[in-house]
């Protein structure tokens, strides 16, 4: 007999925060890209490649923090690629993003075999450890959720606040909005539209890579084939649901994180076959999109900006 308390308890919410973390990073990445007018469908691939390179670097150096740094750099590079294809070469944004996704899947599987001889998973690497926060962790309820998480979870919350500040309070944020919504206006105001777009999409890739690093270095300590599992797409849904704002994306990511944590709970107690439960986050995404998208208007003009 399964008691409801076994399912719905504080641990569930702590788990929800953890599962939300990669979505937070990726959806923030999505926001930066879309705000400069570039749809980034390739978040999934950037996440996966970030996860892989993080493990590879940690494997090579024994230091997971270097792994995280490498993830960020690799994500940024893929963001730059997406930017080059869509900005400099005026390519189709969705095709480019999809290409990056296919590339990530194939390349990480290929390299996985080359480096570790295994297509499925890499060996374990050094993990990051938890970071108990002295006074916080002793508080009831809140303490268990927030007081004893791994580093990248806390960093995620910090990044949300930073993103909000950058987008709403700095002149860089103002320019991002201008470039995305009306590139011609930004151009005639003397802003370098191309540079701003590149910056936006590189930041996007960096954040996605960081999200991937969470999956492979923080949540688990290895790389597994296709481990991003569609989170890059769920992150896009979170971004839309959150109205293209950092705090909105945080809220939406928490919602999706909650469903995923719930799914894992249900699976661990064997209440339903795993496959059925695995569908839950995806169905929730569809339902949410169906219910909320109509009221949301994307902020940007997604056409490539072509000058003389």
């Amino acid at each position, binding site marked *: 007999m399964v008691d409801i308390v076994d399912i719905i308890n504080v641990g569930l919410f702590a788990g929800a925060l953890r599962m939300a973390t990669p979505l937070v990073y990726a959806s923030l990445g999505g926001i930066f890209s879309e705000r400069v007018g570039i749809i980034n469908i390739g978040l999934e691939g950037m996440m996966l490649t970030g996860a892989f390179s993080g493990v590879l670097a940690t494997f090579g150096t024994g230091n997971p923090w270097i792994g995280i740094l490498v993830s960020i750099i690799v994500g940024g590079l893929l963001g730059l690629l997406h930017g080059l294809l869509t900005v400099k070469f005026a390519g189709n944004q969705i095709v480019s993003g999809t290409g990056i996704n296919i590339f990530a899947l194939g390349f990480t599987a290929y390299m996985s075999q080359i480096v570790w001889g295994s297509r499925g998973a890499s060996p374990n690497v050094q993990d990051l450890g938890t970071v108990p926060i002295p006074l916080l962790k002793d508080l009831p309820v809140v303490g268990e959720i927030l007081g004893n998480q791994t580093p990248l979870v806390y960093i995620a919350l910090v990044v949300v606040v930073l993103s909000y500040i950058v987008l709403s*309070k*700095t*002149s*860089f*944020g*103002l*320019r991002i*909005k*201008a470039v995305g*919504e*009306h590139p*011609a*206006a*930004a*151009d*005639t*105001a*003397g*802003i370098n539209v191309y540079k701003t777009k590149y910056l936006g999409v590189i930041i996007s890739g960096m954040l996605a890579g960081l999200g991937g690093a969470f999956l492979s270095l923080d949540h688990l300590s290895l790389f597994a084939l296709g481990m991003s599992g569609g989170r890059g797409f769920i992150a896009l849904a979170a971004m839309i649901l959150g109205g293209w704002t950092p705090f909105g994306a945080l809220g939406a990511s928490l919602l999706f994180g909650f469903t995923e944590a719930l799914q894992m709970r249900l699976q661990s107690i064997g209440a339903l076959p795993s496959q059925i439960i695995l569908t839950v986050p995806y169905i929730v995404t569809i339902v949410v999109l169906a219910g909320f998208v109509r009221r949301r208007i994307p*902020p940007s003009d997604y056409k490539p900006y072509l*000058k*003389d």
Partner: protein
Amino acid sequence: MASAVEMRGITKTFPGVVANDKVNFILEKGEVHGLLGENGAGKTVLMSILYGLYRSDKGQIFVDGKKVKIDSPSVAIKLGIGMVHQNFMLVPSLTVAENIVLGREPKKHHFWFDTNKAVSDVQALCDRYGLEVDPKAKVHSLPVGVQQRVEVLKALFRGAEILILDEPTAVLTPQEVYGLFRAIRALKQQGKSVIFISHKLKEVCAICDRITVLKRGKVVGTVDKNETKPDELAKMMVGREILSTFEKVHPAPGNIVLQVEGLRALNDRKLLALKDVAFEVHEFEILGVAGVEGNGQTELVEVLTGIRKLETGKISLNGKPIANLSAHERIEKGLSNVPEDRQKKGLILDFSVSENLILGRHDKPPFAKSWFRLNLERISDFAERLIREYSIKTPNRGTIVRNLSGGTQQRVVVAREFSGEPEFIIASQPTRGLDVGATEYVRRKLLEMRGKGSAVLLISADLDEILALSDRIAVIYEGRIVAVRERSKTSEFELGLLMAGGKND
């Protein structure tokens, strides 16, 4: 004393067209200089080169006597050149202050955007030049005339001594134009030099000190305002006399074809765009609807064609109610529509000429057999016939419409909509963006259709066009029909007043 700006021997080509051909242009300090020409004469291109948006192929530019290379708008801005474009370069979701300071934002500690300083700087600017705007208002909530003021302030904020105004009156009522002219005179008094790009003769003559006329990329001449008249300028622009009146020999208006009562409809922002609109259009008649764009015309057309739902009201065509019919069914019943933006709504640019000629009629005989198969033979015959009848200048019927000129594209739309001898025609801004030749053609065709018995609803922001073609004129203001007059019993002044919400007592 050096001129403010001198452009020497400017040549610029785009694929297939020479936009500027060895153009010489001089702007003296403190003058208002008009740049006059038809659409496509090269005025905007020339000024875009001055503003750094384009680079000329040949030629030199001198500002205040010094030779300069203007690679980008930021260079132009540094030289004191500011430009107010036809299509506003304003970011809708940002405030007036944010838009004005964009690109040189006041900052605290290098990163933070200093909103308060932005607002106070903008306020100071407003006071200095007597241009009233609310710095904290979001641009998308402002009327067009005010948005234009923001554009001017933007240029002044950057220290513009030379202001380029590109077709500034295109979106203004006669009364707003008066306000703009007052502002230009004030700027002139403060020592600024202004370049006034326009194709409107009367305005150019009213405000400019000197006028340069461009035709097909070449300078025809530069004249002093006192030494010329609108008719002469027109001849310079076009090279021949323009007919501004049309023959009016036709049967008197007959039965009512379209009747509209108590129309209410919402716009995309869920605000009431049409408020109890009522009018009728007779056969053998053109009813012109005059009004500044944005007063409900677009929504009116959408409601009549069936794309927008009505909240309340009745529409009947030949006595039969059509408000519940789909757009498709209304076309079947004899309603045809020349939409206001031919490239966005009237044509599928990547379809061929023949495919565009059957748009909307493609699923009925003779173009379709057995409900889903297209009758390609009939379609080609039809296309060939229309290409001949309407003199559509295209290499062949399979050419993609994107490659045709604006005037030719409009002929395709006109051919499609008029060839079925429709009972009721809606024509929205039908000559916008067309050169004089194409404009005359479209207007002649509208008169022809009226002569054949069609009821025509002409919606245009061009008052001259309304006055030239209409039998009766209705004025729309803020979603209401505020007046309906016989053509012979009204004047441009009265209409202008009504268009701006005034009353003529």
